[in-house]
């Protein structure tokens, strides 16, 4: 069982990396990019014995306790398989 935890800066937090990437894209001639946010992805491979519901609870706790800092970041969890 694999999960993908996607972590991005919260909307109200300035993301200087995203702004630099937006600037670079514009410099390359890509018009029409309104905003860029740079985050990170954590791939978790979980023990098969866990049921999906329990695994979801565990991943939610992992994200809140360590993987994301909820003061400045939001996260979403996607299940790969």
């Amino acid at each position, binding site marked *: 069982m694999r999960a993908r935890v996607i972590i991005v800066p919260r909307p*109200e*937090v*300035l993301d*200087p*990396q995203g702004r*630099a990437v937006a600037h670079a894209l514009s410099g390359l001639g890509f018009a029409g990019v309104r905003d860029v946010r740079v985050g990170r992805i954590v791939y978790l491979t979980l023990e098969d014995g866990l049921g999906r519901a329990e695994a979801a609870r565990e991943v939610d706790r992992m994200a809140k*306790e*360590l*993987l994301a*800092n909820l*003061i*400045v970041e939001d996260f979403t969890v996607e299940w790969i398989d």
Partner: protein
Amino acid sequence: MRVAVLQFPGSNCDDDCMQAFGRVLGCEASLVWHGETSLPAGTDLVVLPGGFSYGDYLRCGAIAAHSPVMSATKRFAERGGTVFGICNGFQVLTEARLLPGALLRNAGLAFVCKDVALRVESQHSDLTARVAPGSQLVMPIAHMEGNYFADAATLDAMEARGQIVLRYVDRATGEPAQTANPNGACRNIAGVANERGNVIGMMPHPERAVEDVLGGTDGLALLAALVAQVSARAA
């Protein structure tokens, strides 16, 4: 006066703190490895030094914040013990939720290493209790993630309680001008304390300004004031 300087894998200002608190200020200072589950008996002050704990993996300070010695440090702070984090140590304290807010990548996306001017804003903390508000101090910063962030409501509440203890200011005017802000920190914040005033974090490095040979002694004034305050309480 017993000072415990915490040492995480990747700390690199631990010896600077040992020199400042031990040799220069005459405290009984010892290094405490991150895997320890308790602090040395009789510890009066816990110092979290600068560096790159755990290689800054995930987020600066995030992994160090969950190390065994931090559980002991939390218990120490809950009992009213004084905990002081410098640079990466400040990042660890925010990640450990011992201090409000978070430290983000510098707004200019560059590592900044230079002397800055600071103004003491409040006597609410053990660090600044014995320093006159408005005092200006010059010492170095050296960081990539020193951009202090908290939401506006949190910042307002912190201001009202005196938890914002140090701000970056213009050396000539003494005011927190935008041009004097080296990293984009909210409201030019360089150092904060918790509500109780016994946990303090700051991005600049006072331990690197404790002897003339280092280029200045303004850091010594601040650390000496901290030691005097903690000693008075311990006595």
